């Protein structure tokens, strides 16, 4: 494993990891497949980082740990609070996880019900729920879609609504799994603009290196369950050896 690259281009983030701190995370799937081998990672307020790596690198597995859907060995802190079974519900209101396929995310018949699901389960009052839904839809510019049926939307629209479903929970960290996959250039462009404008820390896994270059100052490279590089995007993209070894390409 070419872990050597870590030292060559590694810039430790400057902060203490006030939004997210992962220390030595290991995880094995029930069938015995080792998916994470000691992952450590820090994110700070306002950080927008890309998570890249070949198919099967463990990106999705890592993301599922960050809001407690999977439980590995190691430590995870969100906003300075350790993730444990007890405070899972609170952690989940702080970490908004958006899956790759919006059809997995949008399970209610109407857009309103879907965006309201999170706030309702946090036990907010009806007035609060409605306010949250309104502002989340506003943020993704989909207010007019409130009463639409989810299955009538285009992929690009579904993607925006999927993001709204977690924004309505007021998360302090947004985790997006391959948000641009399957979008046409226009929808992709509008997603990029949306992500640029959202004032929330985010970690975004993607195979779209052009988007990485355009949007994310920082890039984390994973391969075979390890973080093999974590640095400024410019530096990562300049390191052709690193890209080649991990099956990546310059945009």
């Amino acid at each position, binding site marked *: 494993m070419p872990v050597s690259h870590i030292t060559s281009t590694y810039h430790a983030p400057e902060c203490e990891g006030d939004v997210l701190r992962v220390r030595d995370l290991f995880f094995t799937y029930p069938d015995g497949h080792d998916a994470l081998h000691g992952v450590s990672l820090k994110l700070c307020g306002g950080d927008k980082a890309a998570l890249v790596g070949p198919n099967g690198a463990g990106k999705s597995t890592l993301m599922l740990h960050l809001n407690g859907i999977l439980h590995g060995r190691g430590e995870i802190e969100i906003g300075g609070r350790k993730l444990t079974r007890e405070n899972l519900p609170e952690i989940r209101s702080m970490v908004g996880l958006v899956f790759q396929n919006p059809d997995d995310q949008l399970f209610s018949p109407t857009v309103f019900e879907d965006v309201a699901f999170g706030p309702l389960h946090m036990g907010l009052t009806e007035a609060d729920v409605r306010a949250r839904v309104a502002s989340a839809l506003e943020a993704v510019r989909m207010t007019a879609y409130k009463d639409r*049926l989810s299955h009538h939307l285009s992929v690009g629209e579904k993607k925006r609504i999927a993001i709204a479903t977690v924004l309505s929970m007021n998360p302090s960290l947004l985790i997006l799994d391959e948000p641009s996959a399957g979008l046409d250039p226009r929808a992709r462009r509008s997603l990029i603009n949306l992500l640029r404008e959202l004032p929330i820390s985010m970690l975004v896994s993607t195979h779209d290196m052009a988007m990485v270059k355009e949007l994310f100052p920082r890039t984390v490279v994973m391969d075979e369950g390890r973080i093999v590089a974590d640095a400024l995007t410019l530096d990562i993209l300049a390191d052709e050896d690193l890209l080649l070894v991990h099956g990546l390409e310059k945009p």
Partner: protein
Amino acid sequence: MHFDAFDRYHEKESFVHRLDPRVKAVITILFILSNALLPDGAWIALLFAWMFLLAANVLSSLGIFYTLKNSLIALPFALIAVTVLFSTPGKPVYSFFVFSSHFVVSDAAIVRFVSILIRSWLSVQMAILLVAVTRFPDLIHALEHLRVPVILTTIIAFLYRYLFVLVDEVYRLIRAREARSASLHGHRAGGGIFWRARVTGSMTGQLFLRSYERSDRVYNAMISRGYAGHLYTLNPHEMKPGDYFTLAFSIALIFILQLIGRL
């Protein structure tokens, strides 16, 4: 691909569209029950029932014959009603032999047969009207309010949501099979029936696995938004005076209809 053909809802601005879904569901059920209670040969009452339906069509601004047009394909089961013709005693009108069995059609049988067909046909039309003027999610809410167990209504809501996703997948699978269902000149194409059934089974298995795995991902999406075994929903519906009035008025009409049927 986009498969919307399952939507029966007709977007229109009308008094009936705006009614509370509970009211619409209850009136529909009562109407169908009332049909079931009408005696055979109560032609006048059946005519009134049809007028009730036509009025509902007009009030929904769907066009007076909307449900009539849409009901014609929905009666394939009428075939079975044919057996009624041979099963009701009365004055013989016609008789014949098939395989040495004697079949007799009586006058009462004909009255019964026609009554069943008309009743059934009116009921189907009412059901068509219900889904044409009520969005399905609202209908599910109505069922919840009418005390259908939440777990069932929720399964139905999921069914409705994922039907569109999975039916799209089915269509793509069928297209993939069709695209490769080729033949060559001089060869008998198509394979045997067992092979075809096996391919169909494999497609079904394939669809099952994908659905099963999707349900895992959906569950993940739900727990990451705070789901812990209990579902909460906002009640989007409120009965207004107009709803109560319409309900009462319709019940009265249906009652009158029953009386007419008995006179």
